[in-house]
């Protein structure tokens, strides 16, 4: 028996920990194209802003591989997968045989087909090396264009503004953070960011990239032109499917996995941003590129790879993020596009506060909590546990708590935490 894990972030680490819950002995080989000890990808914006040193970015302690019997092959790309021979070919020529394989290759930034985005000072914002390159290019007063006002683009914008860059964010949608907020909440966050000096160009995109080897300016579809020293493309991340292309491993938008995190090929598992797994709020398989889901998928895969029995069918989007001290948590379906949903809202722009609960058939399926995030995990748990909140929704709109629950459910919460 030999375990091989391709990847070194949350899903891969979750898998190591999952395997070791069941099997303390069999060696694990972990392969990563990046040369670093496992680190927290979301911390790259903190690193760029100078808030976290590189040594504190480790996702697990330095002795993690050794303690867990992991042979880590770092800085080496897994280039090809031979499903017949059960082997992974590495860039260094090595062929790694496996009994059980986990593909946790994550996502890669999507670059839109705009001519000129291959120039030298166009960067993405996913990996530690990305921010090291950006760090070398910017200083106080640098002019930066960020394409994309999603989570990644705005964390980049915040970090760059904090180190004194002049930031313009260009976004095709009519409002920012459209994957986690609705328009009302987004307007509040946008104003907050504008007060911190970030400029927005919404409902438009880059029409033309000007400059020879380097981008010197961008022309937008709406006619505006901005000079710039650096452009960051952050319009989204797509599953990194290169390793399974041309193999029988089933892919749609991502690698399709079942609730055990196994692919259609027995013995090959996938977890994290590369997958298309079950989202319980939508009742269908979706790509859910968020760290907590990646960890849970990885852990589930690991337990099953080692012969245990685990399922993960409770995935759904949930995020916590702050910009310049303004915190927000969101989960599940926040912008229902179909009939049959009930939405309750509290909107206080003067307090930078917004809260929205989304219900379907009396059950909570999503929430936005802007500047009122206290105890919002209770809402997340109500989504997961499919709690009927019909009679308590109004109270929850004002304050998150457990006292509003009926006795049996309340007692269940009060004694929770144990396995039984």
């Amino acid at each position, binding site marked *: 028996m030999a375990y091989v894990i391709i990847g070194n972030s949350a899903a891969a680490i*979750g898998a190591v920990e999952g395997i070791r819950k069941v099997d303390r002995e069999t060696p694990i080989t972990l392969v990563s194209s990046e040369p670093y000890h496992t680190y*927290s990808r*979301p*911390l790259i914006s*903190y690193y760029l802003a100078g*808030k*976290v040193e590189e040594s*504190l*970015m*480790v*996702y*697990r*302690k330095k002795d993690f591989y050794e303690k867990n019997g992991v042979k880590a092959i770092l800085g080496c790309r897994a280039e090809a997968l031979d499903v017949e021979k059960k082997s992974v070919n590495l860039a260094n020529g090595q062929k790694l045989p496996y009994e059980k394989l986990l593909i946790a290759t994550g996502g890669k930034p999507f670059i839109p087909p705009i001519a000129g985005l291959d120039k030298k000072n166009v960067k993405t914002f996913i990996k530690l090396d990305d921010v090291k390159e950006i760090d070398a290019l910017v200083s106080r007063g640098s002019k930066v264009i960020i394409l994309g006002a999603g989570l990644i683009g705005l964390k980049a914008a915040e970090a760059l503004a904090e180190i004194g860059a002049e930031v313009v964010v260009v976004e095709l949608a009519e409002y920012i953070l459209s994957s986690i907020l609705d328009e009302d909440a987004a307007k509040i966050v946008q104003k907050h960011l504008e007060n911190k000096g970030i400029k927005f160009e919404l409902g438009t995109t880059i029409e033309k990239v000007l400059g020879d080897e380097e981008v010197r300016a961008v022309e937008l579809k709406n006619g505006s032109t901005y000079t710039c020293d650096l452009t960051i493309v952050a319009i989204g991340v797509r599953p990194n499917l290169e390793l399974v292309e041309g193999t029988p491993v089933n892919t749609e938008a991502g690698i399709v996995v079942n609730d055990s995190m196994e692919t259609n090929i027995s013995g090959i598992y996938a977890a994290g941003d590369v997958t298309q797994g079950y989202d319980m709020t939508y009742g269908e398989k979706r790509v859910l590129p968020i*760290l*907590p889901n990646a*960890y*849970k998928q990885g*852990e589930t895969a690991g337990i099953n790879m080692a012969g245990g029995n685990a399922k993960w069918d409770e995935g759904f989007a*949930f*995020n*916590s*993020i*702050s910009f310049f001290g303004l*915190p927000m*948590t969101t*989960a599940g379906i926040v912008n229902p596009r179909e009939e049959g949903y009930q939405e309750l809202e509290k909107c206080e722009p003067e307090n930078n506060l917004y809260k929205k609960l989304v219900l379907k058939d009396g059950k909570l399926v999503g929430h936005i909590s802007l500047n009122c*995030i*206290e*105890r*919002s*995990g*209770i809402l*997340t*748990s109500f989504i*997961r*546990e499919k709690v009927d909140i019909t009679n308590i929704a109004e109270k929850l709109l004002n304050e*998150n*708590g*457990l*006292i*509003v629950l009926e006795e*049996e459910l*309340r*007692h*269940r*919460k*009060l*004694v*929770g*935490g*144990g*396995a*039984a």
Partner: protein
Amino acid sequence: MKRVYAKEEYCIGCRLCEIYCILSHSEYKNDLIKAFKKSLQRPPARIQVEEEGALSFALQCRHCDEAYCVKSCITGAMQKDPETGVVFNEKERCVGCWTCIAACPYGAIIKDETSKKIASKCDLCGQNETPYCVQNCPNGALIFSEEPPYKTSVKGGE
């Protein structure tokens, strides 16, 4: 593992548990007056009383066997001690992103912004003794026990 459990039928909402939680985590562990009069930047209590009419109870971290906060932590700061079962936050690596707050099914993790932003939570008072909240509850509305006080037909939270 031994956990702190609330018995709502005995809780009168006096909030002494919150007071003694603050004391336990202050620099003056044995002096309530000093803890409140001399510590100008008191961190928040890690136990929270909820009250509505005659019903009240105090709740803190459940130290879950399968802890969502640990699995959701983006930095690896939130951990579960494999020996003691205590869920703890390693301050140095916490960046105050509040993902654990969005993940905790009990609402038991608290923002501590007294200095660097960090997630604050019950640490069972270091586990050397019965936690301060339990010791100082005048009504026995908090117990420190292996056995939960309520039997429920469905398993809790997790």
